[in-house]
């Protein structure tokens, strides 16, 4: 479903700020894979997701979604394959637009935007149902501006927007990191529910190792712009946080004492 072959990206090449953010990333996701991504700050997790989404062009390598080489497509062209939720709840929704307007915009991802009315009565009924599944009471506030919602509510709406049209790949970048623990847990559970119900292929970055172990069928760890660990199936189920820490220090060669800080 998603294939990354030797993807490389250097920011600010040739300056003192040069940063080799991706140093040959290889990744192959099968349909229905739900992959959690962990790694220290600056390891390149967001950069991988941004490379897939086409926020900027990669330096070399190949990115294929469902067999289509997308490396040369712009961000908005790739959007038709992707659902995205960001760390910052402000980033995924238009605050000055209504909840239903945001959903209607998402429902037209990858389609031509015409001079037809932006939302139909039939859609409105569909959105009401979809919003009700969030269990946040948003189905009764469909014409409220998204800016009035809390961070958790906004992430839930963004999640709905990302999946209202089934994406080939769902990209979640620490999408619960800015929320309080209780809300984060709720949004995480919701994410899992949507992913499993729709059999989505997903990449979820998280800074919480326990979550990375508990969710998904596969786990990858990044360090220094590379994937240094890739575990799935039974092996993943058997993982513990301590094992992850130990693996990290083995592979990355840093002292064990630093790792907890590095990874969290």
């Amino acid at each position, binding site marked *: 479903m998603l294939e990354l072959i030797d993807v490389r990206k250097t920011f600010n090449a040739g300056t003192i700020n040069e940063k080799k953010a991706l140093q040959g990333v290889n990744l192959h996701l099968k349909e229905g894979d739900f992959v959690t991504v962990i790694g220290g700050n600056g390891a390149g997790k967001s950069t991988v997701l941004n490379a897939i989404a086409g926020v900027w062009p990669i330096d070399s390598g190949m990115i294929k979604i469902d067999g289509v080489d997308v490396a040369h497509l712009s961000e908005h062209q790739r*959007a038709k394959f992707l659902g995205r939720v960001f760390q*910052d709840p402000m980033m995924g929704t238009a605050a000055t637009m209504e909840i239903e307007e945001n959903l209607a915009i998402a429902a037209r991802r990858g389609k031509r935007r015409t*001079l037809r009315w932006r939302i139909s009565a039939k859609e409105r009924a569909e959105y009401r149902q979809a919003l009700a599944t969030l269990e946040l009471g948003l189905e009764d506030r469909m*014409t409220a501006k998204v800016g009035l919602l809390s961070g958790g509510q906004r992430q839930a709406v963004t999640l709905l927007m990302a999946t209202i049209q089934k994406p080939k790949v769902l990209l979640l970048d620490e999408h619960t990191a800015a929320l309080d623990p209780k809300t984060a847990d709720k949004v995480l559970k919701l994410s899992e529910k949507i992913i499993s119900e729709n059999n989505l292929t997903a990449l979820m970055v998280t800074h919480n190792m326990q979550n990375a172990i508990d969710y998904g069928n596969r786990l990858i760890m990044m360090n220094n712009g590379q994937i240094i660990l890739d575990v799935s199936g039974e092996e993943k189920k058997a993982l513990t946080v301590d094992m992850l820490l130990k693996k990290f220090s083995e592979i990355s060669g840093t002292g064990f004492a630093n790792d907890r800080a590095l990874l969290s």
Partner: protein
Amino acid sequence: MFINYLQSLPAAIAQGMIWGIMAIGVYITYRILDVADLTVDGSICTGAAVCAVMIIGGQPMWLAILAAILVGMLTGLVTGIFHVFMGIPAILAGILTQLVLWTANLKIMGAANRALPAMKFNLLVARLDLYKSIFILILFVFAVVALLYLFFGTEFGASIRATGANLNMSRAQGINTNLTKIFGLVLSNGLVALSGALLAQYQGNSDINMGKGAIVIGLAAVIIGEALFGWMARNNFAIKLFTVVLGSIVYYIVYTTVIYLGLDADYLKMLSAILVAIFLAVPYWKKNLKKSSPKNKPIKEKKAKEVA
């Protein structure tokens, strides 16, 4: 004489409506698209020049106005290309187009000024026939508001609003933000040129300097409209657009009053600039106040930017 003052109010209302159409153009870029577009200082004159020259050349009124709108849209396209495809910051892109238009406007008119006397031509609006002008301007304002209301209610119109509201979200949702930005600039300057076409008729000439400071008048109208009449709008987009026109009318009533009181009208541009500056500063000051309160975590903000 107070009676003179009262008699000058209809003229202020007419002028306010003409400039109000321009201010709606400014509203589209400044409020909806979230770019400050300085093209308007030039494109209002372009609209006036095209309309005046065509009427003088014996073309029918509707064609002259249509041509003014189309050429005005073209000026927005130029700024859009400077900004979107050449990576020039929006403000600079607008200033560059202004300069392009300085030359273009002179070449269109063939002179720095073209007279368009109402005695000689059958004009839609004219200072001499105020009540007819006001009636026609009301029709124009309603037509503009209605069309924009419908347009921004469509799928494509909503994608322009989304672009201004959240660029990141728009791209993630597959909106071609280059296209929507350019289209917003095109639409805005088409309206500005329409305003210019009406202004040339109203004041009986088209002049190379007529657009100087137009952007400030437009912003002032938007700001005054929101401050005084914002309560009426709630979430209704059509009423929001009307409040812009009302803001512009208030601006010209103040202008007329200042002149009536015998104050030096030359100060008015300075005063409107200061007014606009203060109103633009308010949201900035508010944000800074919030930032310095302990509730806000600057670290989170930095992280969010990195991801972007």
